[in-house]
């Protein structure tokens, strides 16, 4: 070998040796100094096991399985950092035995593994040490932290002011919320406040009125022959996307005439719309009118409609859809039973959202699709926990103690709602978040939760499967850091009160195992203003006329701040895999963009990547333009999710947050935010600033300034 001629490999090696021998001496090998802890579990090295859990990222409640193998993990043990060999979750997949996920998982679920190993994850309890919002925290022990929380709760109880305790969380059909509601009820505090940007409360309310079921519907896509969808991105971001996708796949694989037709109605072509056989663009907020017109036609054809007189031509004219198209769709719908109509997403986020949902429910009723194969049905469920609306927290007296679990209302509510100001008026805030975000940065005490893989999880999905599928699972792996499961922390704090409630379980595990979901006494606090479980039917139908915030002449464009395929409502922007994920429709990544109709853009002299200023009555933001043929000329769309001001190294100060400039319009009769009801004006304010990054192939990203402008790099 020594006699071998100099080849390329050896040449590079020799060059490298001479060039870097000095550098070598500088670079030490500090691995040997790491403290290694004794392993806590018995593992067969190199052999993987799969353990079940539940994806926590949205309300669908997909069952997952985690591949667990031994590995060296950087952990905290007894307050000391070090390395331990332990079973680590390495990959998530759908659980084949789960009726919701059916062995599949969406892209967000796949990225959920990064929550556990995130470099900015909080590893122990923190107490605020600087000014509120300054982001200065000091480490405290769990004993100190829980003692402080208990002392605050005791102080309220001693003053007889239990009503001043508030709990802010995400609306979920989960046992965790059951436990929270029970603890609050026994303490004497009002019901938990539930907040979520893309809440489906409007649809639940409509279903309660139409069908007496205050919950999301389950669609039998597999057996339907005609699917008519109004604004619901059911394959991308809306409701149980994995269950929908699996059933949709089976629906589309039927051959020949049995293959169902899928028609999608929206003012913007979404990922779901791109899959449709036919895309129908309607004016924003007129989905309900269109549904009513189709209902009248279907009722006429099937002779099942109500005799209520409708001004059909006027309704059709308002939608912007050609009249013959409406009658054709109605004819197809009536001819291809079982047919089903679905509404969600943007269509429910106008001021007439409730009326639109009722109109679609009526279409399903007229078509005879309710509780029928190939139609829409409701899974039997234990009653949902009564929750309050965020507005109840903002209006009236600020709570004295506020506990926040898995909710970031400072980011996910319009600036005009002044959530941050309300939080600043609250004397004591406790966050259970695993990360510093815009809301937990205002907390006085942060008690970081385990990741879902480290704790007991339970879910009772409200839709997605024809049969109820409640499930609970134990931890997949041991905790990495000095964190604690939030339900257990709450139990410890409430059990430690001077006058604790009787009969509280010792742990969340005990709570899950002792009381099966079906036997749970439904906690229904009688707090004033609580939403009723199943509201009584309304005497008269709400108006189908949409209202918009902002004068049409001054603010000519409708702003649609849609759920992002990667970040959903922005709560996932901290996961780098999702930042790196090209948007399915635009291929944009690592930033925000504004979708503008390409002909309109030409008219306005706007090119791809140009910086656009978007102004509403509430404020303005600057964002690069993405020209699209799939959006109406008077509509612009900005994905929600980016624009965080304080949310880990990956999301902070990246892109813009369109929620901030939304007007505080509400969906009539529900109090929910009508997030698609804001009008804006746009102006080109600058040349491309390289902030629009489009996926340029498997190995590189291409800044948009080099795209289609003749200055290819």
């Amino acid at each position: 070998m020594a006699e071998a001629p100099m080849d390329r490999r050896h040449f590079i090696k020799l060059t490298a040796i001479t060039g870097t021998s000095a550098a070598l001496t500088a670079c030490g090998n500090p691995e040997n100094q790491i403290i290694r802890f004794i392993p806590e579990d018995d593992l067969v090295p190199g052999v993987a096991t799969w353990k079940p859990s539940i994806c926590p990222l949205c309300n669908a409640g997909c069952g997952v399985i985690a591949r667990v193998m031994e590995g060296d993990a950087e952990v905290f043990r007894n307050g000391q950092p070090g390395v331990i060999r332990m079973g680590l979750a390495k990959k998530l997949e759908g659980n084949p035995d789960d009726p919701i996920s059916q062995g599949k998982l969406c892209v967000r679920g796949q990225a959920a593994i990064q929550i556990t190993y995130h470099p900015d994850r909080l590893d122990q309890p923190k107490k605020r040490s600087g000014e509120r919002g300054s982001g200065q925290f000091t480490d405290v022990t769990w004993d100190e932290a829980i003692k402080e929380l208990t002392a605050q709760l005791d102080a309220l109880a001693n003053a007889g002011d239990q009503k001043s305790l508030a709990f802010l969380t995400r609306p979920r059909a989960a046992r965790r919320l059951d436990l929270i509601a029970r603890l609050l009820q026994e303490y004497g505090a009002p019901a938990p406040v539930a907040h979520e940007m893309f809440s489906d409360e409007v649809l639940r309310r409509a279903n309660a009125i139409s069908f007496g079921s205050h919950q999301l519907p389950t669609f039998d896509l597999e057996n339907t022959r005609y699917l008519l969808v109004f604004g619901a991105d059911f394959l991308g971001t809306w409701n149980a996307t994995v269950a929908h996708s699996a059933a949709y796949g089976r629906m589309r694989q039927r051959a020949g005439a049995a293959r169902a037709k899928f028609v999608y109605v929206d003012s913007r072509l979404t990922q779901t719309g791109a899959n449709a056989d036919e895309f129908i663009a309607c004016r924003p907020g007129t989905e309900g009118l269109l549904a009513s017109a189709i209902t009248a036609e279907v009722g006429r054809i099937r002779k099942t409609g109500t005799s209520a007189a409708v001004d059909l031509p006027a309704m059709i004219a308002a939608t912007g859809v050609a009249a013959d198209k409406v009658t054709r769709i109605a004819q197809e719908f009536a001819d291809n039973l079982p047919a089903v109509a679905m509404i969600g997403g943007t269509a429910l986020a106008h001021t007439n959202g409730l009326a639109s949902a009722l109109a679609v429910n009526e279409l399903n009723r007229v078509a005879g699709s309710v509780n029928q194969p190939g139609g829409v049905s409701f899974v039997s469920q234990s009653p949902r926990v009564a929750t309050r609306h965020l507005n109840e927290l903002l209006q009236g007296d600020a709570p004295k103690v506020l506990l926040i679990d898995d909710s970031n209302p400072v980011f996910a509510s319009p600036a005009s709602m002044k959530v941050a100001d309300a939080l600043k008026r609250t004397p004591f805030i406790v966050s259970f978040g695993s990360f510093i975000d815009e809301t937990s940065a205002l907390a006085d005490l942060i008690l970081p939760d385990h990741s879902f893989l480290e704790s007991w999880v339970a879910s009772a999905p409200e839709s997605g499967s024809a049969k109820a599928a409640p499930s609970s699972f134990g931890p997949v792996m041991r905790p990495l850091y000095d964190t604690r499961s939030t339900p257990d922390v709450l139990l410890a704090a409430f059990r430690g009160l001077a006058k604790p409630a009787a009969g509280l379980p010792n742990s969340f595990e005990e709570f899950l195992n002792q009381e099966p979901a079906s036997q749970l006494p439904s906690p229904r606090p009688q707090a004033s203003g609580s939403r009723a479980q199943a509201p009584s039917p309304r005497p008269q139908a709400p108006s189908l006329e949409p209202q918009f915030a902002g004068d049409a002449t001054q603010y000519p464009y409708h702003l649609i701040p849609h759920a992002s395929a990667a970040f959903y409502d922005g709560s996932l922007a901290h996961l780098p895999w999702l930042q790196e994920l090209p948007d399915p429709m635009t291929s944009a990544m690592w930033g925000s963009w504004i979708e503008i109709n390409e002909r309109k853009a030409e008219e306005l002299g706007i090119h791809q990547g140009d910086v656009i200023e978007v102004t509403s009555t509430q404020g303005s933001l600057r964002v690069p333009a993405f020209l699209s043929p799939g959006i109406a000329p008077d509509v612009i769309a900005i994905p929600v999710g980016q624009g965080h001001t304080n949310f880990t190294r990956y999301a902070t100060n990246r892109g813009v947050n369109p929620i901030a400039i939304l007007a505080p319009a509400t969906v009539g009769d529900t109090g929910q935010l009508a997030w698609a009801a804001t009008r804006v004006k746009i102006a080109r304010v600058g040349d491309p600033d390289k902030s629009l990054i489009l996926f340029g192939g498997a190995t590189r990203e291409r800044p948009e300034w080099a795209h289609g402008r003749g200055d290819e790099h």
Partner: protein
Amino acid sequence: MLAATIGCELRSPGQPTWGADAAPSRWGTSPVFTTARSSFGQAFREFMGSHPTEVAQPFDFSHQIHLSKGAQCTDCHTGVEQGPRAGLPSINTCMICHSQIATERPLIKQITDMQAKGIDLNWNRVYNYFPESHVRFDHAPHIRAKVECSTCHGNQAEQTVARRAVNMDMAFCVNCHKQKQASNDCLTCHY
């Protein structure tokens, strides 16, 4: 090497900068970013294809003494019959015997103390493959085929601290597979 050289200059996001005044990394691991290596030195050694024969261990564990007392390889290197990898024993494994045997020896006292503090021995692996080789080795089928441990790991009864006594290059594997009429398909090992 070029990549590794540049890598020494680059830092992964959020890592402290390299220098005397820089805060130490949160975990004490190397703040130097190299392509998939924890340190520059490791990247360099692996690039040069150098497997050290002697590997430093926390203390001079004697295989010879333990085997002469009748211990079996699989007593400490568990998992070798069930899975791809032979386990390196944790301190708990040592203490199964040493809570009773030779408890007065200074070294044993030392590891007893370590166990009380929850701290493990930081063994270093002697035999491994570089990731670039794309080789996967599974112990269990070899044990089932009655290949002696010593075939690949040398006679440990003659060794104190384990040395890399056998150079396991591809020829070594292929020859044995030929002799035993095991598959020599590429995908048997490279997958």
